């Protein structure tokens, strides 16, 4: 371990994903190379995560020009230093696999051929390479959807970074990112769960008298008291057209008791549904819609009036209940998707697409049943957590200030909302109130300082109150065209991707080599880049792995000491791209070597030497089965890969 310099030339606080193999390779290389180094980088992950202006993680001089020319830029740097007589500065190009084996190959070939004194390190994560918890609710054109229900092509609300307004954009991909560590962010009125690398839109204060700005920050960079952009109001809704098919008489159905079913949503009907969500039940089999409303309550009077307006006559009442028997009405209410049973009730997506007036009527209905008013604040009580969660988001689209869900368990018989609890001992409530009117005109700068988006009709800033780890959860991510962000749980977040490169191994899944009915992932083998460079008669070519840092550092030091073009190809697992857990990077990197999928060798002046031979070669299945990019592989396919590896070992003469 003495070979490790204590000096960190790559500053911590860069934005690489947790468990990133490539950033480790960069860090180790800098430890081996030391301060007297100039780094040239192509466009790629390592460039993006280390240098978002005005920040940089590089404590050595660093230059990036474009994607395909790191080797050419390094040639220029080397020649420039030489022409000025500056000696002893090591020029290093560090590129990803795309910038090296694909688009950057020509420039690299030229650099090696011209014998520039440059060390080129390829951090190979085997593809051009962020996620939300699967419980996230996404705001779409068709209302609120679970992230698991969003499909490609759905129109999703995004935040326009220029106009600060909501716009609809098409979803162009959904990615399963596997079970990962998930954190929960809580602001005054919003809550969201996301992985640590997920970007959020944060307010950046630039000091007194200067304009504040919105910047993207990943969850792990967020701090309590940071202000993030959240949704406050979404206009433009309209009346919802029901596509319900009533059944006809026949079979077991002998009486239909037809009533006038509404074709469109209306304020009166929404109020009725609000009351139904609170106190109603439906038995589609029996054709019964009922409400548990004792005689004499305000709510009962409103309901009777509403039913009369909506459906005409046919209401049966007794001291405790109100019934209506109509097969199609019962089926209709069931069809609307509010769920059944106090604990399972919910708010269906289409409610989110309604006009403000209808949403207000729905809330009015809800409040009549299970709500009460305390001063200026309203409180709604329910035994269904999902209902509260969705109600919270619904209220957030209507410009209300909404508190968090207070969930509690109480003994049976305890009084709650003027009623004794029967079975539902677990229940929750949320409080909400109308927004205060700020006198923005009179005190513009003061309010704008407090709330950057105060004049915005749709979004506002909220302070983060809590960030906590909630454990491992399945995660998903969306990709949205154009704006690259979407609104999840009422918070503006960013999306992400993983495209194949020439270094992608045979049969691996990427977003551009999907596994479908006909194609089974990448159909071409990995390009043998070290051999290509060795064919240029480079004095030193080596392979390495972040799983074996000592071997890697030794090779970097050796390459740097050799005059002329040298090349190190270092194998770096990528958590999101390989579909592996962020804690498994090193384990997977080691397994690649132990199974023979990646070999550690050096070619010095044309002489091949294996620098590490696994004591006993393990089956490739051990390596493949740990990565979900290979999860589609059948035993036969794995056997095929095993054969390729065996042959490769035979070819290298090391088996």
């Amino acid at each position: 371990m003495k070979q490790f310099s204590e000096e960190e030339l790559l500053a911590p606080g860069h934005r690489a994903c947790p468990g990133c193999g490539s950033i480790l390779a960069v860090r180790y290389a800098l430890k081996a190379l030391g301060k007297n180094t100039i780094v040239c980088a192509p466009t790629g992950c390592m460039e993006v995560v280390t240098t978002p202006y005005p920040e940089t993680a590089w404590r050595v001089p660093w230059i990036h020009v474009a994607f395909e020319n790191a080797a050419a830029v390094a040639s220029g740097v080397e020649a420039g230093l030489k022409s000025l007589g500056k000696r002893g500065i090591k020029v290093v190009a560090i590129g990803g696999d795309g910038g090296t084996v694909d688009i950057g190959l020509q420039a690299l070939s030229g650099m090696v051929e011209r014998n520039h004194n440059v060390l080129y390190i390829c951090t190979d994560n085997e593809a051009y390479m962020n996620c939300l918890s699967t419980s996230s609710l996404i705001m779409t054109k068709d209302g609120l959807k679970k992230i698991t229900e969003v499909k490609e092509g759905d129109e999703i609300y995004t935040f326009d970074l220029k106009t600060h307004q909501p716009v609809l954009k098409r979803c162009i991909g959904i990615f399963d990112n596997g079970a990962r560590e998930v954190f929960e962010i809580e602001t005054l009125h919003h809550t969201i769960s996301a992985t640590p690398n997920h970007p959020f839109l944060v307010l950046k204060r630039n000091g007194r008298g200067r304009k504040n700005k919105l910047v993207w920050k990943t969850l792990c960079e967020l701090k309590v008291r940071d202000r993030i952009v959240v949704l406050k109001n979404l206009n433009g809704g309209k009346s919802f057209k029901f596509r319900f098919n009533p059944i006809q008489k026949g079979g077991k159905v002998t009486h239909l008791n037809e009533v006038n079913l509404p074709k469109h949503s209306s304020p009166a009907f929404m109020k009725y549904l609000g009351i139904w969500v609170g106190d109603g039940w439906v038995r589609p089999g029996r054709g019964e819609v009922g409400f548990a409303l004792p005689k004499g309550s305000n709510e009962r009077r409103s309901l009777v009036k509403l039913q009369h307006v909506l459906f005409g006559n046919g209401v049966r009442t007794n001291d405790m209940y109100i019934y209506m028997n109509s097969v199609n009405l019962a089926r209709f209410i069931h069809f609307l998707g509010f769920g059944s049973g106090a604990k399972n009730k919910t708010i269906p997506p289409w409610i989110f697409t309604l006009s403000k007036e209808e949403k207000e009527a729905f809330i009015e209905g809800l409040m009549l049943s299970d709500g009460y008013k305390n001063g200026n604040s309203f409180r709604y009580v329910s035994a269904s957590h999902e209902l509260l969660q969705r109600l919270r988001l619904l209220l957030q689209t209507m410009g209300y200030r909404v508190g968090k869900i207070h969930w509690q368990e109480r003994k049976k018989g305890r009084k709650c909302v003027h009623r004794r609890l029967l079975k539902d001992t677990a229940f929750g409530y949320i409080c909400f109130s109308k927004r205060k009117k700020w006198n923005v005109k009179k005190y513009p700068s003061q309010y704008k300082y407090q709330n950057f988006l105060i004049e915005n009709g749709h979004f506002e800033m909220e302070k983060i109150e809590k960030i906590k780890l909630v454990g491992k959860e399945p995660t998903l991510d969306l990709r949205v065209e154009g704006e690259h962000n979407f609104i999840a749980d009422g918070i503006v977040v960013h999306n992400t991707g993983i495209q194949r490169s020439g270094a992608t191994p045979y049969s691996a899944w990427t977003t551009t080599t999907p596994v479908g009915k006909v194609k089974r992932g990448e159909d071409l083998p990995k390009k043998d880049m070290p051999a290509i460079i060795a064919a240029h008669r480079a004095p030193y070519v080596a392979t390495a792995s972040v799983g074996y840092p000592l071997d890697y550092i030794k090779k970097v030091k050796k390459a740097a000491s050799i005059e002329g073009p040298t090349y190190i190809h270092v194998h770096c697992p990528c958590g999101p791209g390989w579909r592996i857990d962020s804690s498994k990077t090193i384990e997977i990197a080691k397994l690649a070597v132990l199974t023979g999928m990646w070999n550690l060798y050096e070619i010095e002046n044309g002489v091949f030497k294996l620098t590490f031979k696994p004591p006993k070669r393990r089956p490739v299945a051990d390596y493949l089965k740990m990565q979900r990019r290979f999860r589609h592989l059948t035993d036969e396919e794995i056997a095929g890969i095993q054969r390729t590896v065996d042959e490769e070992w035979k070819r290298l003469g090391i088996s």
Partner: protein
Amino acid sequence: MKQLVTGDEAAAIAAKLARVKVISAYPITPQTIIVERLAEFVADGELDAEYIKVESEHSALSACLGSAAVGARTFTATSSQGLMLMSEILFVASGMRLPIVMANANRSLSAPLSIWCDQQDSVAVRDCGWIQLYCENNQEVLDSTIQAFRIAEESLLPVMVCFDGYILSHTAEPVEIPEQAEVDKFLPPYKYPYLLDPEKPITMGAVGVPEYYEEFRYMLQEAVLKSKEKIIEVGQAFGRQFGRKSDLIECYRSDDADVILLTMGSLSGSVKEVIDEYRGHDERVGLVKVRAFRPFPEKELVDSLAHAKAIAVLEKDFSPGSTGALFSDLSGTFVNSRKSPLLLNFICGLGGRDVSSLQIREATKAAMEAAKIGEVKKTVRWLGLRETMVGLKP
């Protein structure tokens, strides 16, 4: 001392006189003589520089960015398709404010393949943030290239010196070659203020997130606009020292002219001949030559053109679906001015076709006709077009 040299040689000699440290170029006709001469200078030890024999124009310019970033005076040369391959890096060079000087021997673009002269290549990349200077003769090629280093280094912008392929690049003319000591006085060794230096590590070419990108582009715009003063200043300083001053534009017998022809590059020489002929017949015709196409000399052009009745813009480029680029820029400058002359556009000399005095006269006559009747019948005309081939005539 006067020597008989071609335009390419003039550019190579200018680079040598500027004592460039790094040359990174890939050969392309009609620029080849530049890289050949420079390679010879380096081989003969006449020039102490690193010559990078890159494998493509893309890498040529990329290497230039690298060497300029460590503080070496850097030169490259290209033409046509090569410039197009460089175009991605052209934008990066100006965005990173690296003072690179490039000689571009103007040549047409494929398809059809043509190795002959027009100005479509450099005009196509007019939005890349480089300063573009166009030369009329080989003397101007030499003078502008030497000046370009000082303009680039003092305004931290890359400069493209454009001269017509073959017409200048391969044609020998007597050129006054200044003494090395004089050039050294005019052009002191290059000191770039923002070096890639392990002693003071900096990050170059960072990611510009939406919160910052626009500001960077605004600063680039300001820099290019401000470089106008630098071009004038350097042109005057050069004039004081070498007796040949240059400006953003050059006016030739245009002060009292009713009809003014506007050109860029070598065409100006032929136009001057025609102007003299007209002047002999007491026709008030003049020429304004645009030397700096970027930054576009709006004010200067309005000042020197506004008094005329009609302007004929002759150019060796066009934007398909629009007009010639110089013409559209010029029309833009007159948009908010109180008095605007009539503007006519003539596309000519594409793909190396000679522009004859007959064609220049045809353009002048059309402009005089427009000035007389006070209206333009046809805004864009093509000179010397084989009308039967394109179906305009049976």
